[in-house]
């Protein structure tokens, strides 16, 4: 086996060094976070359309993939990087690990919703679009007699306590964008208030994106905050799940880019052209994939009831997403979420539960003093250790980039923020408990 593998590698490297600038041929290697259900149909169609090229799929999660490309750059063997999260591509681009290319494919507009489909600098290209929303298990909702949610705020209601799940934004690029979309749509203070009110109802915060749809599919958790195709492909596989896009969300492209010093550049370009061609775009309709093509024309061949971001007014009027702003405070938002929510989930849930109980008690026997206490408790939960300007300031962001400039170390900031949250949540809990006593 070793010999055959070696021979293949030898052949591949010979072919790739002699055949550049001619018709694409040989082995083209792609590092991707996509599952076999996505890569297999694409691989099959691509190899059929481009004779002589073999697509080698290396499956790694997005973070591991970025680390891999970075660690192996001295002797790079990878041609393409193919994943959802635009921020992973920003990281690769920032480290000089991608190369420019100008796709020849036609019929793809410049923007989807408010988001540019391709990297304006030309380092990576959107091939599919995805929006974020709420997915739920119908059997679970029926058994627990829960109403269908419409907006993010709905998930903060008492009925959903302990029924909601999310992936940590520090672990899932797609969730990070959801959080950032809420922050940009509602503003820093109001956005965090919404997010933390929802977070008080979280059952858990998972460490990988697919953990959330998996838990909703199997009915361990009722509601998940997910990217749309997780729900669509689960529906296509027969799971009893539903999905909606809330008003404040954003549509962002999933991307592909050529790695710097790609050993087989010609074939890498051919792969991108194929993905962007009408044939490549239509593969996205496959039941196991279910993503939104970026070429508006191919929606003519879409299955019935397929969401069309170019036609659907709800999807089209989504907020303008500021990529630069998001990029500047990327790490800060992730760490804030982890320190205030993921690692403080128990105190946060205890405080939220107390508030829900206080409100239920006040519903039976109202008192102005009780209402004031609950309002104070909510404010305490919503309080942020840093304001919007500080979050993007160089002295804060510098703590997370490992830069040499003076300033606090990451661990110091984290401890400060965690202590801040823990203290506020405890106060909120006692205020809410006071309100319960008043209402009795």
């Amino acid at each position, binding site marked *: 086996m070793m010999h055959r593998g070696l021979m293949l590698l030898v052949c591949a490297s010979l072919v790739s060094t002699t055949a550049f600038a001619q018709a694409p041929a040989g082995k083209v*290697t792609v590092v991707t976070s996509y599952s076999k259900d996505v890569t297999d149909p694409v691989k099959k169609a691509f190899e059929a359309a481009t004779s002589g090229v073999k697509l080698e799929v290396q*499956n790694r999660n997005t973070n*591991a993939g970025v680390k891999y490309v970075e660690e192996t750059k001295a002797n790079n063997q990878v041609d393409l990087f193919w994943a959802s999260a635009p921020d992973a591509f920003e990281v690769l681009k920032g480290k000089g690990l991608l190369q420019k290319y100008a796709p020849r494919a036609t019929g793809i507009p410049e923007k989807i919703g408010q988001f540019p489909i391709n990297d304006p600098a030309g380092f990576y290209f959107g091939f599919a679009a995805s929006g974020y929303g709420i997915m739920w298990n119908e059997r679970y909702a029926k058994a627990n007699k829960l109403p269908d949610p419409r907006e993010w705020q709905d998930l903060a209601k008492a009925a959903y306590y302990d029924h909601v799940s999310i992936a940590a934004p520090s672990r899932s690029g797609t969730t990070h964008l959801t959080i950032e979309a809420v922050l940009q749509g509602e503003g820093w203070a109001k956005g965090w208030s919404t997010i933390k009110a929802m977070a008080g109802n979280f059952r858990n915060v*998972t*460490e990988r994106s697919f953990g959330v749809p998996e838990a909703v599919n199997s009915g361990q958790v009722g509601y998940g905050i997910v990217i749309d195709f997780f729900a669509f492909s689960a529906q296509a596989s027969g799971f009893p799940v539903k999905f909606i896009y809330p008003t404040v969300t954003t549509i962002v492209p999933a991307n592909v880019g050529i790695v710097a010093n790609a050993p087989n550049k010609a074939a890498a370009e051919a792969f991108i052209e194929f993905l962007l061609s009408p044939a490549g775009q239509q593969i996205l309709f496959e039941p196991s994939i279910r993503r939104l093509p970026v070429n508006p024309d191919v929606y003519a061949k879409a299955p019935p009831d397929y969401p069309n971001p170019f036609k659907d007014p709800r999807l089209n009027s989504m907020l303008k997403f500021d990529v630069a702003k998001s990029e500047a405070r990327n790490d800060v938002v992730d760490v804030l979420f982890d320190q205030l929510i993921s690692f403080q989930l128990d105190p946060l849930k205890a405080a939220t539960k107390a508030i829900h109980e206080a409100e239920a008690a006040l519903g039976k026997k109202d008192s102005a003093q009780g209402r004031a206490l609950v309002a104070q408790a909510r404010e305490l939960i919503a309080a942020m250790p840093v304001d919007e300007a500080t979050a993007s300031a160089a002295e804060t962001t510098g703590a997370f980039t490992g830069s040499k400039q003076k300033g606090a170390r990451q661990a110091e900031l984290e401890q400060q923020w965690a202590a801040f949250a823990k203290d506020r949540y405890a106060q909120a809990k006692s205020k809410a408990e006071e309100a319960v006593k008043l209402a009795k």
Partner: protein
Amino acid sequence: MSIALSTGRAARGLSATPGQIALALLVAAFLGVFLIWPSATVIFVAFTEKGGGPFTLVNFVDFFRTDLFLRSFWNSLYVSAMAVAGASILALPLAYITSRFEFRGTILIQTLGFLPLIMPPFVGAVAMQLFFGRNGSVNLLLDDWLGFKIPFMDGLNGVIFVQSIHYFPFILINLSAALRNIDSSMEEAAQNLGASGFRLFRRIVFPLAMPGYIAGASLVFVKVFDDLATPLLLNVKDMLAPQAYLRVTSIGIADPMGYVISVVLIVASVAAMALSALATRGIDYSTVQRGGGGLARRTLRPLESFAAYLTVTLILLLVLAPHLGLLLLSFSTVWSYSPLPDGFTVAHYLRVFGESSVYIKNTLIYASLAGLIDVVVGTAIAYLVLRTKLVGRNALDWIASAALAIPGIVLGIGYLRAFYGLQWWDGTPLASLWIVIVLALAIRRLPYALRACHAALQQISVSLEEAAENLGATKLRTVRRIVMPLMMGGILAGFVTSFATAAVELSATLMLVQSNSDAPLAYGLYVLMQSAAGRGPGAALGVIAVVLVAACTILSHFVVERSRAGSQARH
């Protein structure tokens, strides 16, 4: 007199043969190149200032100033200790009943009892949730009939529950091997002196089997302390290993704390191993006589027999529930919020059938090579530690054990850093050869084999080797003809543990797999388990992995029983 004594000691101190010294150097070189160097390329960050400055310990000060890390540390300690207790409760009855009594299906029970160790990544977790989760089969039925639920899988208690089930085979295997090695003459002597029943077990049998129990228990402790998969699957993040993992693998965070935690994990694991060595130090567990075929097996009276079967069945049902869940999942169409799947199908097996043969072949090659390397290196280290007085022999033991504490992802990145720059003659990076995966697996599973070999050698009296040497045998010949055959049970236990766990290892492999044709089963599983449609096929592949490893385990049991019977016949 005293002079003579001290020179005698000095002479013994230097009495290592050139062969032994060469062996020690070889082992040290192996550990240096494949464990220390790659890990050091990653972990050194823990000792540098922000932005890669000079040497500093400030990061460790930060560690002890952060509530989250301190809480994680105590949680890890608590969960590990409780998991050892839980695992002992599951393992002791099984080991005792199958080794002490004439019991049908001993091999079957020992194989089944071994299965929990082989829990394929991801699918195992899903199956476990579907059975024991908040809305798993058990809780849905409980809720239906009795109106309450049991939070099996919630918080720290959930971690203890799952870890006890997952790792109790470590104790079972090592304890069973130790029980089989006890000579029946010891027991007969005790019986002649009037001991019987539980007293006999407590005072004679269990103390003699102590090295095996300690080997297993220390493995469980350290493994639980360092395990990140189970806490993460239960969404418990305030433990040390998950904290290290979350930090090391997040993008854009050049954070030294992940590596600081790795160092803390390594120190704590080595300390636990050293403590367990201390517990058995100064006590001689070896018995001279061999070949008695282990403990005398008693036949059970009908009522006893019933009780024994009941106990064994209940324990096996509990520990195999995840595998039953996996089996159901692999045949199910949709399984969501219901005690049983909606329907059944064989489609998942058909889908993975064609593509799994390459995964199976790779897994068998990688895991058995890794297991072989492990028992060779493990036996060598055990021999050096227990039979020579070489300076620094304990360090070899501890370094090898520290491999348990190095997160797989750290080792994976370390291998890329250390070996990717080195090129084959045609420019192929050294790190892209599949043998690198084997080496990474071998390093990660070495502690298992090492503990088993160590315990086995501890039970053999030196006087047997001295006798052989007095009769003119060379050291090498003694090892080959006396030590190895007597250690065989322990070596096999080590091989099987390393082999089986290597067969389902993912974290380091995921970093090192370069192409689908070189990928093992665990990678194939990972690739499938990222989508809704892949769940069934993933479960089917998981079942294939479990069956495969179980078959290999039974086979090796048979081989050993055969050779044991053969050697007894020769006597």
